[in-house]
């Protein structure tokens, strides 16, 4: 019977292949192209004469003597101290992930086990909070942060991002904890554990798959953030994304665009590696909330 389901006409199969191929090119080619181009000079990547120069690297050969150049990377990382921004991003992202998960597991566990009506109301409230455009929240922080001298420090940006990510983290961990059988912690409590002891001794050891998946999404939210980091940090402690945006202000100078291109490729590389290793978790995380709902 299943053979019958999978039997398809040849032309239809061809159509599917063409469509999927088209999509893969659409999704993947821009990254490949930009990565390749980041090793060229501006005259090749933005070629007035012929875009094919970006492939052969004609002007790169004339200007630097070889078909590939690391000038863009050197300019971005060393001349424009992109390494500083990368370091800041690392501090911010690691802190956001750890704090988000700590608060989120406690809250998500409580929401999953409560069963009371107010837990549902809290989840609805979190959904409303999730919908708030981040910039509207930032415009509420800015003035008090200026007044209290909190503006421009990494910890401020970290705390704000943790809070903004909480609604999402709560929802996700809540649905993971629902999947862990209730009997597990309840039997521990029958044996005399308090709720917190039951959580720590019984639930914590089995919660890691869900926590890792949620952590990945917290990582992405913090790593990809532009709104909060661009408005709450000053030039001296910028993270990568606003730093790249600041390269663009000075694009008129020859070569500076290539700094931005190199920086963009550098910032994308960790994400590639992340997807490569955690593809399964990302897919399961995206569908966790949806398939059950």
């Amino acid at each position: 019977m299943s053979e019958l389901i999978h039997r398809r006409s040849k032309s239809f199969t061809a159509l599917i292949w063409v469509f999927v191929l088209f999509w893969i090119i659409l999704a993947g080619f821009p990254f490949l192209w930009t990565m390749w181009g980041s090793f060229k000079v501006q005259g090749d990547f933005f070629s007035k004469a012929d875009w094919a120069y970006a492939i052969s690297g004609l002007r790169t050969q004339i200007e630097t003597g070889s078909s590939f150049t690391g000038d863009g990377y050197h300019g971005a990382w060393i001349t424009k101290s992109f390494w500083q921004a990368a370091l800041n991003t690392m501090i911010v992202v690691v802190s956001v992930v750890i704090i988000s998960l700590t608060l989120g597991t406690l809250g998500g566990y409580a929401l999953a086990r409560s069963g009371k009506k107010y837990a549902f109301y809290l989840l609805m409230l979190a959904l409303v909070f999730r919908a708030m455009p981040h910039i509207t929240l930032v415009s509420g922080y800015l003035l008090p942060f200026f007044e209290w001298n909190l503006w421009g420090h990494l910890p401020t940006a970290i705390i704000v991002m943790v809070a903004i990510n909480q609604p999402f983290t709560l929802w996700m961990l809540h649905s993971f904890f629902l999947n862990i059988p209730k009997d597990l912690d309840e039997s521990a409590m029958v044996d005399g554990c308090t709720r917190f002891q039951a959580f720590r001794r019984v639930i914590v050891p089995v919660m890691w798959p869900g926590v890792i998946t949620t952590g990945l999404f917290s990582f992405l939210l913090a790593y990809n953030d532009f709104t909060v980091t661009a408005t709450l940090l000053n030039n001296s402690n910028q993270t990568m994304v606003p730093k790249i945006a600041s390269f663009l202000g000075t694009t008129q100078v020859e070569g500076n665009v290539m700094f931005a291109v190199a920086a963009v490729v550098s910032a994308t590389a960790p994400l590639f590696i992340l997807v490569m290793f955690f593809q399964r978790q990302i897919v399961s995380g995206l569908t966790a909330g949806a398939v059950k709902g």
Partner: protein
Amino acid sequence: MKNRTFFWFILPSLVAMVLFIALPIGSVFIQSLYIEHGAVLKEVKSCGPFGCKDEVQIDVAATSQLKEEKPLGKFNGFGTYTNRNHLAVTELKSAWNDSANWSIYFSKVYNLPFYRALAFTLTYTFIVTPLVLLLGFFIALGVNSLPKKLKGPTIFVSLLPMIVTPLIGSLILFWMIDSKGILGASLQWLLDDPNLSLKASPALTWIMLIIYGVWHSAPFAFIVFYAGLQTVPSETIEAAMIDGASRWERTRYVVLPHLVPLIVFISLIQLMDNFRVFEPIVGFSAQASATSLSWIIYNDLAGGEGTFFGSAGATSVLTILGVAVLLIPVLIRTWNDFNRKAV
């Protein structure tokens, strides 16, 4: 779970959300009722070799003192809401009176910054969301019928547009459609128009931003639909085949109804995310032809012309009202579902 225990478990998370999400919503409202102080002027006698005269000068010390004492600015009531940069009540009225027909009226309204941003935000939200659903659904159907070995790599490549930083993703596309970039140059060659620039025309900029939006979000819909397709009961499909249903009929009457909850879920997330469209406008430097509500708030706060807390606050409150309107149907639906389950 006991109420007390629940309270202690949820407390840290709740404090964070109240402090940095609930309070700011209140504070933007208060902020929106005030506007910046004007400069304090003073009259001084300046005496030179040709006699004395009265001059009006800015009293720098008094101005900064006033700013320090009342950082919010001076009370303005709903003045900021009705001024030209926001709801523009008087401008709307005069445009109504001066316009001979609807198209003149709309073009006048479109020139007001708030309505301009609202127009783009709504267009973007309501075009990108259905296109994302459609494209995601077809990719899911396509990938689902690939041989098993190819599925993994395909999903890997498909995830990239979604996972990458929105600002970076839009920059990558922006460089490609530059008139000296690969796509821009190819389009010039294809259409035989050496002066074609995607950046110069507002219509093309809108289309470009919408294409970016679909490219960025389609993977999300794809993954969710793909997971949904794995759970379609094969018995139902087989039964439909025995009854003589064609491939199209099976998709339409068996697969699609099974995916309805997922369509609702994706639409909800997409509506929320597309309504706050912001980074692509920065990445594409599109502000001359397309602005969004989020973008004008950002411009008030960090646009380089100074910070206008009152103006940013007013736009924020209006944006939050917009989000509320979008969310109300969903909330009502979820509410009813919950109450039905409870009964």
